[in-house]
């Protein structure tokens, strides 16, 4: 055994890093969003969404395999040149910061609605950003250790939800495929947005200390886990609420859990929200890391992302304070999700085509 001086993570940690980046703030309203498009066939939409993510992951894998020791930022530099690459890098950083601030503003909104109605939003946002700064400064391996440990909480999540199996009506999912294929595909679009986070593959893959195929395997495992988890949540919500009630509950998971009570705990949704906060924090940290890693790639001499974390966090806090009220926050969130079409779907695929056409590859160092 050797003392690990260099900053690498194992493929096992990589699984949890992607899971934690994906599962986050959106999970509370995800079933509702999909339901508005796909009705009681939402769970099929989620499964299809998982397949789309898997295809994307394979594309990412082909791209990153050609540049094994580079993150997305260095790939951009070496395929599109310093200037155009620099511009796209900047756009990516802005995108990651926007996603981060979207997480922050949704988080503060939900906390304001559910637990602390009088606490000012900026305080919640600043505290969360402070935790993010503390977490992301320093090597990635520490972050990965944290992610693996807090993944235990996902089990609590699942257990709390499983409890509702006693109170569901199985007839609610029938008839399957009533409205045809189009609504299901529309629901898939919504499902994809809640699965955003797998693009961390493009940033973290070079930090993983294992063979290229193992990285794909790890990412696929996390995709499968998240897809099953999401479709399970969606399915349960459909079974629990039925058609008429569902349209009234924007945070179906919370409303569902709120209706249970145990002998020693009356409001389990508070417990659920406490666990959810950790998931929010982990996905915020992932985007903060992605943004600060991008800022680092602009510097020639700096080999650490730590000094840039602070700037990325400040930017995300300032942006997240701009939209106010449920309506504005919702609009902002929709805007950011549409941006992810470009940055998660469009640009990486373009980049792959470009590198395939120009036969650009990372030079092998002997």
């Amino acid at each position, binding site marked *: *055994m050797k003392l690990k001086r260099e900053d690498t993570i194992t493929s096992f940690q990589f699984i949890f890093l992607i899971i934690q980046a994906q599962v986050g703030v959106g999970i509370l309203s995800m079933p509702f969003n999909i339901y508005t498009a796909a009705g009681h066939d939402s769970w099929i939409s989620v499964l299809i969404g998982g397949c789309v993510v898997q295809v994307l992951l394979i594309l990412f894998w082909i791209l990153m395999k050609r540049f094994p020791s580079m993150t997305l930022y260095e790939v951009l530099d070496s395929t599109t040149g310093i200037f155009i690459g620099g511009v796209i890098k900047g756009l990516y950083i802005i995108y990651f910061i926007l996603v981060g601030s979207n997480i922050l503003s949704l988080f503060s909104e939900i906390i304001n609605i559910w637990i602390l109605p009088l606490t000012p939003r900026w305080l919640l946002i600043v505290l969360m950003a402070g935790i993010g700064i503390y*977490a992301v400064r320093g090597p990635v391996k520490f972050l990965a250790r944290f992610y693996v440990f807090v993944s235990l909480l996902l089990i609590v999540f699942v257990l709390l939800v499983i409890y509702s199996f006693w109170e569901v009506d199985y007839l609610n999912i029938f008839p399957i495929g009533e409205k045809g294929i189009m609504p299901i595909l529309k629901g898939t679009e919504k499902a994809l947005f809640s699965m955003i986070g797998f693009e961390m593959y493009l940033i973290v893959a070079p930090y993983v200390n294992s063979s290229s195929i193992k990285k794909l395997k790890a990412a696929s495992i996390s995709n499968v886990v998240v897809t099953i988890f999401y479709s399970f949540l969606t399915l349960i919500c459909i079974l629990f609420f039925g058609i008429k009630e569902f349209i009234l509950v924007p945070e179906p998971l919370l409303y569902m859990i709120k209706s249970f009570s145990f002998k020693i*705990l009356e*409001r389990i949704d*508070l417990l659920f929200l406490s666990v959810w906060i950790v998931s929010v*924090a982990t996905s915020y940290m992932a985007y903060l890391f992605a943004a600060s890693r991008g800022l680092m790639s602009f510097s020639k001499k700096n080999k650490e992302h730590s000094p840039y974390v602070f700037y990325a966090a400040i930017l995300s806090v300032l942006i997240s304070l701009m939209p106010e009220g449920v309506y504005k926050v919702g609009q902002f969130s929709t805007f950011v999700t549409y941006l992810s079409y470009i940055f998660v779907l469009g640009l990486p695929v373009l980049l792959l085509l470009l590198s395939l056409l120009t036969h650009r590859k990372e030079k092998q160092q002997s």
Partner: protein
Amino acid sequence: MKNHRSNKNSKPVTMNADENLHVIQSILHGTSDLKTRTITYQKSSGVIIYLESIADTEKIQQSVIEPLNRAMDDEGTVETVITNTELSFIEELHEGVGKLLTGSCLLSFDGMCGMYAVNVTSQLTRTPEEPTNEKVVRGSHEGFVDSLTQNLGLIRKRLENKNLVVKQYVIGQSTNTKVALVYMDDLVNKEVLSEIFRRIESISADMGFSPGYLEEFMEDKTFSPFPQMLPTERPDRTMAHLLDGRVAVLSEGTATALILPVTFLSFFQSPDDFNSRVLSGSFFRLLRMVSFLVAMTLPAVYIAIIGFHFEILPNELILPVKASLEGIPFPPIIEAFVMVFTIELIREAGVRLPTPIGQTIGIVGGLVIGDAVVSAGFISNVMVIVIALTAVASFTVPTYEMGASIRILTFPLMIAASLLGFLGIVMGLMVILLHLCKLESIGTPYFAPFAPLNLSGLKDAVIRFPLWKMNNRAMDALPQKRSQRNTKGWKNK
């Protein structure tokens, strides 16, 4: 000793014994415990010089004076005559003074260009007793004493192994304290070892008098609330850690060994776990982990429930809690602070007092204050229960240092809970967890085997598996060999 040898104005030993004595007396500023005795050997007169305070006069008589007298007229050099095991020839006066200070006596003869130093250190020994703050129910009742050689002996007695290595250092420019590093050469990770060597060699201090000093000079993060080295007074515990590939640091004059690198979990383990049966041992460990969580979070959770989330309590519980809160003039955070502060006062007052007075303080503090404060209506009943439970839980941690850290961590969590309720607690716990994940002890992960997660390491973590199931060593100290021979060797027919 280093600083004597490196002295610039060191003088060579002269042919005249009296002159040598005068120089030594002036180097030691005429200290009163410097004693001499004149002696003649083979017609040349000489002098024996020693420090009465640390030399054993009996030994001088037996191994120096008597042999010299007996061999008065024989042919033979001093080396062949003196029966002591440690004898060296010295040519520099300052070197001689250094020897004198470690408990040797000097022999100087007229007409001899040098001196003999004979080791006659008096051994002030204390019999090994059971350490008071690391008691076990079953198992070894021996503890370290204040003498370094005796402590090393206690370890060697338990580990008869050719790979056990002791490396000595001298730390403290003024005190010249002997420090010994003990490790198993075939197990310890060489990179960890060289890092420890590097850190211990670069310590420059006037005084190196206790493990606490060494710990502060060597640890990775001084301002972390968690101790990064394990102090122990138990030789059996030290031995077990050495066999996991860790390093023990002992120093002269203290009965404590420092084990490094360690993990968070080593502070929750006790030799008792392995002396008791598997099920009960696991149960006790689980109990300690739970008590760790209780000690850290219980007051915070209570404050959060009272202040923010009353609705989380079931109907049957609301009435008694609400009734006890009736008429209390302070907000829960002040209540909790007052009570925790009182308990810390009682503890601090009791620690250094002799046992009978300590007990009195405990009774006055605990019973009288606790009862009076409730009946006076200052503090609610439930709060007293919560704080008392917290205090008891914080003392179940088998190491004193970790218990203290936990008690310190309750305060920020209480403040966070009073500001933001459950959200504050979760955020506080997240920061603590992040800190634990980031902390390293000499380059090895502190929060192993939880983070990084190591499934086979968990066999000896929260619960303990049967010994014959643990075929792998704890990997957190990154030992050279992974496998550990633990098999039953027989099967039920």
